[in-house]
């Protein structure tokens, strides 16, 4: 009895669906041409290559991808002269990578967690993903476009750039970018040693009234210490944590024996910390060797462009 009922209802609802369909087909011609393009494809002259990505998937990569999406890897794309179809953003564009906007001004935003439908919206032909994602997620993205998860650690921008170069068929350019960066770094390191030999530096980031110090081998830390040869203060090397930026108390900061303090201020000039006696007693503050930068600068990021901008900031601050 129940089965009969169910099948009856199914039939009837199917009828309703059909009726609804025929209603709609009438006005079909009005709004069909959604921004869909199928003109790409079949134009490649060279063979697409297959690479093994960071999840172990064999990815067939188009030889000349035209619509690349590589969220939070835009720095590398810009360095390789590739304009992505969309760029990383947080909270509807409240936070974007400001330091790249000269090159990415006209590039639309995509939420940082890459919702499937947002990715689909841009119809990329190649997706490069920075961090290892779940295989289930990978499979969903792979339906939209060939998806390549990087093998390189996100904290190593040179390795990341090299791998991006391989994926995008721009190995030589990647190599060139690294070479010219290293040349420039060697030069600037000399300039800095000339005026500040053996002097130490630290980068502190203030956000929501909390302080963080940069990891000595990562992001702007790598530029300061590895590339430009500034000395690592003991407190910084002791804060061994796996984070790019490790939390540090104002007390610990006050005791830090550091010559140059690069201060990335996400809280604005009226932050309470500047009124604090502890802050005012920091040696670098008293000697006026604090250089303040806004969150729109590249200090918090990774990549050849971010690193070069940080390098310029450091040399300008110290040598002038």
């Amino acid at each position, binding site marked *: 009895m*129940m089965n009969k*009922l*169910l099948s*009856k*209802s*199914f039939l*009837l*609802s199917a009828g*309703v*669906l059909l009726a*609804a*369909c025929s209603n*709609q*087909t009438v*006005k*079909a011609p*009005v*709004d*069909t041409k*959604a921004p*869909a393009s*199928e003109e790409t494809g079949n134009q490649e002259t060279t063979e697409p290559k297959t690479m093994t990505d960071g999840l*172990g998937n064999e990815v067939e990569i188009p030889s000349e991808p035209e619509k690349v999406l590589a969220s939070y890897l835009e720095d590398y794309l810009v360095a390789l002269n590739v304009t992505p179809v969309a760029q990383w953003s947080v909270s509807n564009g409240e936070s974007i990578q400001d330091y790249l906007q000269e090159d990415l001004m006209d590039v639309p935003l995509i*939420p940082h*967690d890459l*919702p*499937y*439908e*947002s990715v*689909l*919206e841009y*119809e990329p032909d190649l997706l490069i993903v920075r*961090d*290892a994602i*779940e*295989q*289930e*997620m990978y*499979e*969903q993205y792979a*339906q*939209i476009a060939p998806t390549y998860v990087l093998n390189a650690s996100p904290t190593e921008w040179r390795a990341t750039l090299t791998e991006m170069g391989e994926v995008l068929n721009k190995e030589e350019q990647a190599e060139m970018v690294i070479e010219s960066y290293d040349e420039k770094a060697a030069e600037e390191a000399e300039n800095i040693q000339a005026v500040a030999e053996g002097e130490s530096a630290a980068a502190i980031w203030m956000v929501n009234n909390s302080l963080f110090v940069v990891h000595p081998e990562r992001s702007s830390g790598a530029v300061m210490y590895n590339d430009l040869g500034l000395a690592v203060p003991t407190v910084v090397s002791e804060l061994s944590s796996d984070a790019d930026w490790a939390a540090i108390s104002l007390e610990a900061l006050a005791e830090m024996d550091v010559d140059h303090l690069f201060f990335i201020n996400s809280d604005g000039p009226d932050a309470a910390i500047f009124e604090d006696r502890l802050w005012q007693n920091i040696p670098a503050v008293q000697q006026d060797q604090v250089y303040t930068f806004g969150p729109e600068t590249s200090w918090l990021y990774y990549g050849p462009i971010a690193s070069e901008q940080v390098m310029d900031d450091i040399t300008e601050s110290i040598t002038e």
Partner: protein
Amino acid sequence: MNTNKIIVKNVSYLLFSLLTLILLMSLISLATGHLALTPSDIIKTVLGEGSKRNELLLFEFRLPRLAIAILAGAALAVAGTLFQGVTQNELADPGMMGINAGAGFFIVLYLTFRAQGTRSDGLWQMMTLPIAAFLGGLAAAVCIYAVAWKKGITPIRMILVGIGVNAGFGALLTILQLRMDQRAFNQVTIWLSGSIWNASWTAVGSLLFWTLILLPFSLYKAKTLNFLQLGDEMATGLGFHVEKERIKLVAIGVALAGASVSVAGGIAFLGLGAPHIARKIVGNKHQRLIPTAACMGSLILLLADMMARNIFSPTEVPVGLIVAVLGAPYFIYLLITTEA
């Protein structure tokens, strides 16, 4: 279980309306989202004339999701109905009694081991995940039975022990989660709060397989549930092996809950709410109650999923949270209006 007055006498009419409503909601759900699809887009795509993007959007992202919402909603609702029938308590629910937590615990355990071993392909995982979930739910059920057993089992003991078992498995899950790295932790948290954004056709297939077997079977057991409602003594007097039947029914409920947890995560309140609403409409007879509850469950989860996708579009909210947000006021309302 006092039988309130029955609102709808004619169940076939009601079921037809509910199914029509589900269909209507499905169409709306398919059309809405970050990328809008007009009805004509949908029709063109179904006929194979749509753009490649719309095809992908419809067939690979929205349709499997829709199917999961409908199937998982029905499965959870029926599981809830079974548990409420077995325990003779309208507040029983696989989520509250630790069945979902047990299933979730086993799944997380299974996924952790899988992560350490070799990677298996999606299909294998999709077929084995419900089994892991079922075993976990069963483990929870066995725990409940073992502890609550005292020369037979009384429904109220079963519920109280179930709540304890729920807390126990919740704690085990927390321990497991604390040993994970940040990323895995976040993933599991989102998954546990009920999420169907990774819906794939393999997941649909696995859930469909289980519901196609278990839903008709539940319906077949409707009469037994009606007898259990008369109380253990009466049912025994009528020649029922009460304990045996109870175990069978619990197993079906666990399997239903496990299958749905394995694809949709821990969606709370649905197993409680859907049968509850259904009972208000069609009364206590399980031949009427089970299909109505199933439709209700589908409808609620469908609605919740639509909200989950659209409220903060394109960013998504776990659908389980939406169900809970919708469910909580309903239960407060119930508590206020029901006489002691």
